[in-house]
């Protein structure tokens, strides 16, 4: 049943990376509870444009929870108060009539604000560039049945690969640590034969890049897993630790 609500939005406005930002409060009426959070933001921007004000800048792309582009820290949670979804999958039915919704950008030293709610998540791309791939050394094609992969490993690798690199883990972490992201990216390859070969070098390269970019040290609070839209498990962090420590010890 469709219903309309009126909300008050407290949105972080920041003109540029070096400019000091502040919260602005906007009233938005007649928001359909069937609309998504991003549709509500579009509605807000239309209202701002009609008032000849500058619209709010925010990241978004696929709007179906697979690209990892949308961000926003809504009422104290990355991707909002609902669980296991991205901001684009968050619906206005999660909010009450007359509620004040606080919208902030991801806050982490490694994710500088570009404008308003848009942050630079290029740091994650740099970590991937450091080793989050498989070097294809072509040779004779081995028989597929010669390399059995257990169901357990295949499932674990797929669970790790569900990470969309949105940055919610580092945004939620009180230490600004990117360990869940790096652990997922190391795990998805380390668990399968093609990726296993370069496992040690990959773990070292990606962790070194993560540290260099200014992400914090993981203290295992588990906030990342709780906020992850894809529910990536912190057990992957244990695997990353194991990979890294073993690689360093065998040096």
């Amino acid at each position, binding site marked *: 049943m469709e219903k309309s609500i009126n909300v008050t939005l407290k949105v972080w406005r920041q003109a540029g990376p070096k400019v000091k930002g502040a919260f602005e409060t906007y009233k938005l009426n007649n928001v359909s509870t069937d609309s998504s959070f991003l549709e509500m933001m579009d509605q807000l921007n239309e209202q701002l444009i009609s008032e000849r004000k500058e619209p709010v800048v925010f990241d978004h792309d696929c709007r179906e929870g697979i690209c990892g582009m949308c961000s926003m820290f809504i009422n104290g*949670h990355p991707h909002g*108060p609902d669980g296991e979804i991205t901001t684009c999958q968050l619906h206005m039915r999660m909010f009450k009539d007359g509620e004040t919704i606080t919208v*902030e950008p991801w806050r982490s030293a490694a994710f500088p604000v570009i404008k308003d709610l848009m942050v630079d998540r290029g740091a994650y791309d740099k970590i991937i560039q450091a080793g989050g791939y498989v070097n294809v050394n072509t040779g004779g094609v081995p028989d597929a049945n010669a390399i059995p992969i257990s169901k357990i490993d295949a499932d674990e690798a797929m669970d790790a690969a569900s990470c969309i690199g949105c940055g919610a883990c580092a945004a939620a972490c009180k230490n600004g640590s990117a360990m869940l992201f790096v652990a997922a990216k190391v795990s998805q390859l380390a668990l399968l034969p093609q990726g296993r070969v370069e496992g040690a070098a990959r773990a070292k390269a990606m962790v*070194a890049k993560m*540290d260099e970019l200014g*992400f914090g040290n993981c203290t295992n*609070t588990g906030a990342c897993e709780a906020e992850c839209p894809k529910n990536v498990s912190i057990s992957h962090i244990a695997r990353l630790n194991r990979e890294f420590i073993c690689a360093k010890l065998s040096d």
Partner: protein
Amino acid sequence: MWLINSSIGRKLVMSITGVFLVLFLLFHSIMNIVVIISPEGYNAICATLGANWYAIAGTSVLAAGFVIHIIYAFYLTYQNKVARGAEAYAVAGTQEGVSWASKNMVPLGGVILGFLVLHMYNFWFKMQFAELTGIHTGSFDPANGAAFVTELFSNKLYCALYIVWLVALWFHLTHGIWSALQTTGLNNKVWLPRVKTISNIISTIVILMFMAIPLYFLIGCGASC
């Protein structure tokens, strides 16, 4: 040196020193229980440890463990504050499954350290230190541990202070033990809940053994039972 330069290396140092300190606490709590069962037996342990070379060597390694654990804690916390960025969230939600202890390890560590200094003054200074230097610091013979315990815990305020200290230590251990195993990589999806349960059980056993002594004196058993 990767134990200083890499985040996982630094965490590994925290976890290894942490596990070492947990093993010490296990040893210490088992030793303490003897004072309830037999004060003479407890004094025999005190005399054995005393100022012998092996006790001094053990104390030095232990002190090094504490110092490294604390220095790294401050270093990691400083780095994490920087990584979090200058601007704090206006609204910070809480997540299900994230323990209070895990978010307050440094304040809990501070409470533990404060009481540790007091504890060192009350026992170590009057016992091993006194025996080592030969100076007279307490009202009893340095090896008469049971007398020192009885003297301190005849003060109900001290009993209460020790209980507060042990509660803080319990919180610190519940997160610390499983976190140490996670950091060393000894964990996976199946073992995650098990490791957390093991952590809670060990913490509770250690703390109950420690707490037995102030409670024993608090309910007035020190003199009569």
